[in-house]
């Protein structure tokens, strides 16, 4: 009976990283803003259309008195897809944002939204990074084992061991593995196309830079087991021997 068909799988929740263009208003006068917007779009910023965009009013001295509705209308009529307005903690502004059918969005790493220890998702394998270390890189000295996930938020990840099958390492910046990469490695997860992956022996389940990925079966026999770097060339992942 088609009426009794189970619909348990009709929806799926998935976590995805998304690069967002932030549109910062530096001037409170609506006419000036629209003027500038038209000029920038006329200059060939055509690719901005359709990109998810976040409006940021933080630089405005008087965000409360600003004609938010006017700017949102102007953006929408020019084909810009606004997904929200940056949350500055101003409740009145947040209410106006919601009235316009948008969301007040906190940027990651801001305010109290970020749960403690998010940069190390599950793995507690390695001792805490030494205090002298730069806050933007994460050093792991133990093997990253199956089922563990390590994320270097905002910087590079250095693993002085191997990454096992079933393990996942992620970084906003580069990933350096001074051992074998047998699990998944995702560099530049926030969209940094310049990020690279370095490893002593390449045998991955998946490699990805800024969302461009390659699966294990797409790794050739010549590349496998070698000491390599992986970089993004346009839309293609290049695996080069070191």
């Amino acid at each position, binding site marked *: 009976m088609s009426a009794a068909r189970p619909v348990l799988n009709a929806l799926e929740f998935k976590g995805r990283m998304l690069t967002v263009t932030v549109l910062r208003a530096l001037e409170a006068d609506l006419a000036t803003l629209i003027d500038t917007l038209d000029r920038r779009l006329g200059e060939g910023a055509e690719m901005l259309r359709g990109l998810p965009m976040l409006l940021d009013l933080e630089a405005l001295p008087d965000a409360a008195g600003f004609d938010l509705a006017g700017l949102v209308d102007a953006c929408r009529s020019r084909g810009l897809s606004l997904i929200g307005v940056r949350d500055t903690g101003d409740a009145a502004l947040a209410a106006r944002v919601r009235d316009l059918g948008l969301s007040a969005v906190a940027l990651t790493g801001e305010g109290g939204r970020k749960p403690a220890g998010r940069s190390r998702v599950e793995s507690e*394998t390695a001792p805490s990074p030494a205090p002298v270390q730069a806050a933007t890189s994460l050093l792991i000295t133990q093997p990253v*084992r199956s089922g563990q996930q390590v994320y270097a938020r905002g910087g590079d990840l250095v693993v002085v061991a191997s990454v096992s*099958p079933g393990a996942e390492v992620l970084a906003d910046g580069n990933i350096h593995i001074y051992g074998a990469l047998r699990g998944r490695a995702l560099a530049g997860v926030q969209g940094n196309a310049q990020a690279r992956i370095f490893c002593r022996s390449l045998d991955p389940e998946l490699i990805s830079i800024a969302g461009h990925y390659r699966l294990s079966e797409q790794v050739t026999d010549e590349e496998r087991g070698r000491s390599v770097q992986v970089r993004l060339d346009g839309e293609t992942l290049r695996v080069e021997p070191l």
Partner: protein
Amino acid sequence: MAKIVVVTSGKGGVGKTTTSAAIATGLAQAGHRTAVIDFDVGLRNLDLIMGCERRVVYDFVNVIHGDANLKQALIKDKRVDDLYILPASQTRDKDALTQEGVERVLQELSADFDYIICDSPAGIERGALMAAYFADEAIVVTNPEVSSVRDSDRILGILSSKTRRAEQGEPTIPGRLLLTRYAPERVERGEMLSVDDVREILAVDLLGVIPESKAVLSASNAGVPVIMDVESDAGQAYQDAVARFLGEDRPHRFLTVPKKGLLGRLFGG
């Protein structure tokens, strides 16, 4: 204070209970007072392997719930002095293992024993976590095949993050690898991972390699820990492993295909 050792693997059927029985027996034979606890509540097997299934009155869960004291529940082994078995309950499930209860039982045993061997159930759920939580050392039992190796890797990760030692920021448990059901001739034919392959992936010390052996099944069915079958290769390999566990340096045996003698070659034996 006793040393608490968890025997674990992630995957089922790789030889955790066989190993727990063998190691516990070996330690007791070496003169250490040893208790071995079955954490596989609901799927009790250790009593069968140890051959004491007819003498189970009270079990681990009874002690946790205070229905019996340890003295009533511990079963003394008839063959080896200083060896005691604490069986699991067959009628309950893993939820009966409370952290406070397990801690209390282990504390009480610690006062009286040198070694406590915790025979972990398969999986990474409550039973396995409880068996590992209070451990000072871990023996990770692995078969030379990819799924077992991956599961062992997962367990090693859990040992380094979800035990009391890890939570208190102490040095994490030194997990040691025990490779079981090893068949050198299949390794030579490329059908099985080699010791070196497994060691490279898991990156832990090797406690021992137990060869695939008919002696293991017969010992299980007879209710005699295989380490007591001193004629068998598996029994000798377990004795080596116990000696290494106690700090002795012994070379690994049974890693290569034994060379056939003249008669064997003539008759194809």
